């Protein structure tokens, strides 16, 4: 008969603590885009691996009989303890700096953690850029040339609730229009396509995805 040891569920506590500590690193880099960054493949993998470390410590300790009682407390201790361990640095030696002063040389798991964090969170940035690019590609009306898109923007901008934002955006859009006219860009050409994308990015970065659809979608 299959026996399930439900005490392993306490490892969820360590999992949450590890995940939250990992998310703090994501937040430091991405601020208001933290959730989006966490949903990219590298961001999600990073969070999962950070959560898995204290979970494995708890599950291993319990499985090998090192922890037998006070399981909730032990799970909390594994979560915070693993995090404390990952953030430690050990004094190695003192050495001179290039400015002539003396500096402590510290090394430890924190260096490894920073390297690991940068590895995945930098990759998440490319994922976010890819996502923005795909959004623009998917939502820019294919059939319209830059001129038509520009006209639609002018027609819809008055409906936007914040006139200050629209005034600022219109200045940038007008600059693009001036460039397109100066270069005599032919409708439907590759260059026209590029300017459509540029207009799309301008609008997206100022008013977000919903605003983009309101202002530019047909």
């Amino acid at each position, binding site marked *: 008969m299959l026996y399930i040891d439900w005490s392993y569920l306490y490892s969820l506590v360590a999992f949450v603590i590890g995940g939250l500590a990992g998310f703090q690193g994501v937040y430091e880099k991405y601020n208001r885009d933290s959730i989006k*960054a966490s949903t990219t493949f590298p961001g999600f993998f990073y969070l999962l691996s950070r959560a898995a470390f204290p979970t494995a410590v708890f599950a291993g300790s319990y499985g090998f009989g090192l922890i037998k009682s006070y399981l909730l407390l032990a799970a909390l201790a594994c979560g915070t303890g693993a995090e404390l361990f990952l953030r430690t640095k050990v004094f190695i030696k003192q050495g001179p700096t290039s400015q002539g002063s003396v500096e402590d040389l510290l090394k430890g798991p924190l260096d490894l953690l920073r390297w690991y964090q940068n590895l995945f969170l930098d990759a*998440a*940035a490319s994922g976010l850029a890819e996502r923005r690019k795909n959004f623009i590609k998917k939502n820019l009306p294919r059939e319209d040339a830059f001129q038509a898109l520009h006209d639609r923007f002018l027609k819809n901008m008055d409906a936007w609730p914040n006139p200050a934002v629209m005034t600022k955006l219109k200045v940038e859009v007008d600059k693009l229009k001036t460039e397109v006219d100066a270069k005599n860009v032919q409708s439907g050409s590759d260059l026209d396509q590029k300017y459509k994308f540029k207009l799309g990015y301008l609008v997206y970065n100022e008013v977000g995805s919903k605003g983009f659809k309101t202002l530019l979608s047909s």
Partner: protein
Amino acid sequence: MSQQIEADDVSSKVLQSLIKFHGAMPFLELTSISGIDDEQLEQAVSELEEKGLVRIINPDNDLEKIISVTGEGQRLAQSQRSG
């Protein structure tokens, strides 16, 4: 000399824009946000790539091209910002 300074200014602006967007941007987003002319930007990006400060993903298609700053590029941008 002044041309060198201008080129460095463009490179510096590119790095700062990338950092503002967490380290990676589609090429056309970079041109629209930074306000740098396409050809000038293209030249600056390839110089930065040669120096190992940025990486270019899908380099042959401007609509698909993504510019991503390397660790070395991040360090340089941060030192420019604090300096």
